[in-house]
């Protein structure tokens, strides 16, 4: 895939995240967003006057309000500023990061505030996602983001026993991480000895996909402030550099084809392209942490193979040997991931925010217990839309001609 080079480096200098929950009745949408904006500004040590441009996004129409960015000026600080609205389904948060990166890297803006939010309690998530499908055909057949296909695929390849245990192992590890993250929406405190009960008793949603495997539906907002290298170096905290990102999708997936096999996932294509153009041969070795957008435990397990360019059952072994735990060889979602909190329009941005916190070393109780210099973050959206982003601790020669 053709790609140019940046005009200048871009750093993340401010991070804001609300606590994710399902009962934020005390705030309306702009008020909830403002909580994250305020945190990000305070984190960067700047006032809203220093922001040149605001990019804003969520799942369109999920709260049954069109173009909410106009209303949200009451909380975003976009009054009198250039502003863009971006809505790309589940990847919105990640695409917002890509947009902010491009806007600063281009030289057009020095400081960009990116805001992703969702208030899923004000809408119906599954109904809203179903509404995205082709009205003459798929809309009658689809049920939101719920599918058994990931489970069917893993069970076909590895047998029901091993596949189901791997998915549940992944789920429990994600919950353990969620219990360390004060911002999580759902942290159940699951125990290893509950595994058999959960596999048998958790109510099924579709086929082998059970309620316990599936992500939350949360309210929440995330705000990130991006700055050019020169401005970033002058700001308070240590900047996290956005090295590169790639966006791949397969638009026709949901409209017409069912998504079983040989469903060419976009994940491997995205990983191959991104790593090749950055000279990374062994991503499992290179990266220190991965905040992956995992809408369900089944997909979480399945996509490890594609993102790390693995073969055979290497990804299952990563899960079975608990290498994906916070103190493992490749920590996955120390924040608890999407299963623990999913305010959709913010979720993909939260992956970047959490990866950035890991590099800064200030994630708090869910900080990975080793030096984090290279972080990976992903976003996922309905039509097998993948955004893959690389974050770095230092500028040391990469990325410039």
């Amino acid at each position, binding site marked *: 895939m053709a790609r140019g080079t940046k005009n200048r480096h871009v750093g993340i200098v401010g991070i804001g995240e609300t606590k994710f929950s399902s009962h*934020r*009745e*005390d*705030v*309306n949408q*702009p*008020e909830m967003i*403002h909580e994250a*904006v*305020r945190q990000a*500004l305070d984190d960067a040590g700047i*006032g*809203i006057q220093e922001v040149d441009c605001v990019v804003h996004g969520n799942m369109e129409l999920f*709260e*049954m309000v069109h173009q909410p960015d106009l209303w949200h*000026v*009451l*909380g975003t*600080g976009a*009054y*009198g500023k250039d502003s863009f609205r971006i809505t790309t389904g589940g990847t919105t948060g990640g695409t917002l990061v890509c947009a902010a990166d491009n806007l600063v890297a281009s030289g057009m803006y020095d400081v960009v505030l990116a805001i992703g939010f969702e*208030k899923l*309690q*004000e*809408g*119906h998530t599954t*109904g*809203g996602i179903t*509404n995205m499908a082709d*009205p*003459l055909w798929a809309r009658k057949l689809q049920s939101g983001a719920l599918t058994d296909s990931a489970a069917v695929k893993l069970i076909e390849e590895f047998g029901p026993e091993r596949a189901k245990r791997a998915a549940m192992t992944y789920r429990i590890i994600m919950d353990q991480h969620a219990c360390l993250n004060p911002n999580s929406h759902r942290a159940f405190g699951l125990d290893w000895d509950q595994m058999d009960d959960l596999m048998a008793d958790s109510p099924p949603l579709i086929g082998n996909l059970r309620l316990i495997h599936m992500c939350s539906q949360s309210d929440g907002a995330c705000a990130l402030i991006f700055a050019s290298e020169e401005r970033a170096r002058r700001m308070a905290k240590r900047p996290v550099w956005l090295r590169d990102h790639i966006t791949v999708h397969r638009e026709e997936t949901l409209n017409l084809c069912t998504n079983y096999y040989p469903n060419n996932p976009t994940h491997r294509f995205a990983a191959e392209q991104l790593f090749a153009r950055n000279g990374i041969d062994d991503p499992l070795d290179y990266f220190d942490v991965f905040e992956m957008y995992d809408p369900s435990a089944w997909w979480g397990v399945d996509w490890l193979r594609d993102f790390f360019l693995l073969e055979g059952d290497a990804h299952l072994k990563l899960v079975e040997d608990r290498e994906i735990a916070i103190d493992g060889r490749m920590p996955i979602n120390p924040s608890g991931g999407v299963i623990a909190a999913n305010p959709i329009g913010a979720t993909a941005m939260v992956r970047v925010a959490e990866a950035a916190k890991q590099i800064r070393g200030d994630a708090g109780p869910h900080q990975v217990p080793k030096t984090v210099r290279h972080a990976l973050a992903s976003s996922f959206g309905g039509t097998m839309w993948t955004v893959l982003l690389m974050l770095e601790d230092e500028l040391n020669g990469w990325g410039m001609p």
Partner: protein
Amino acid sequence: MQSDFDTSDCYTIEGKLALPYTYFAGRVGSRFITTLRDQHKIMGVRCDACDTVFVPPRQTCERCLGDLTDSWCEVGSRGRVVNFTVVRYPDRHLPRPVPYVLAMILLEGADTPIVHLLEGIPPEQVAVDMAVEAVFAETTTHTIRDIDHFKPCDA
């Protein structure tokens, strides 16, 4: 581009977009509505830094991002028309049969006008600067319609 586009297989299918939703007014919005409902009083908030009284109230000043949570003030239920329009196209989603008047009304003490219905006067006679007053609703809907409409009054 094809200019001889064959439309013989084109037709349309009627459908719907029907989804449930919920709206949370939040603390500030709720106080505004419950005060309208229970006390027939209209509340605004004041940003001291921008020297502006906002109606309807909001938690944050959009211009300076100051916190307005504890800066409540009451504004009058009377005001003057600063702009208006006459709605003439009928639609089942609209609050009144046409024609009806939507007016921007600057209430006493407020710096931002609100939009509401203006009744009790033929549309041709509505004029900017007219004095109007709020008529509160008998039953609540927990919305801005707890003010049912505005009507002309003595200046």
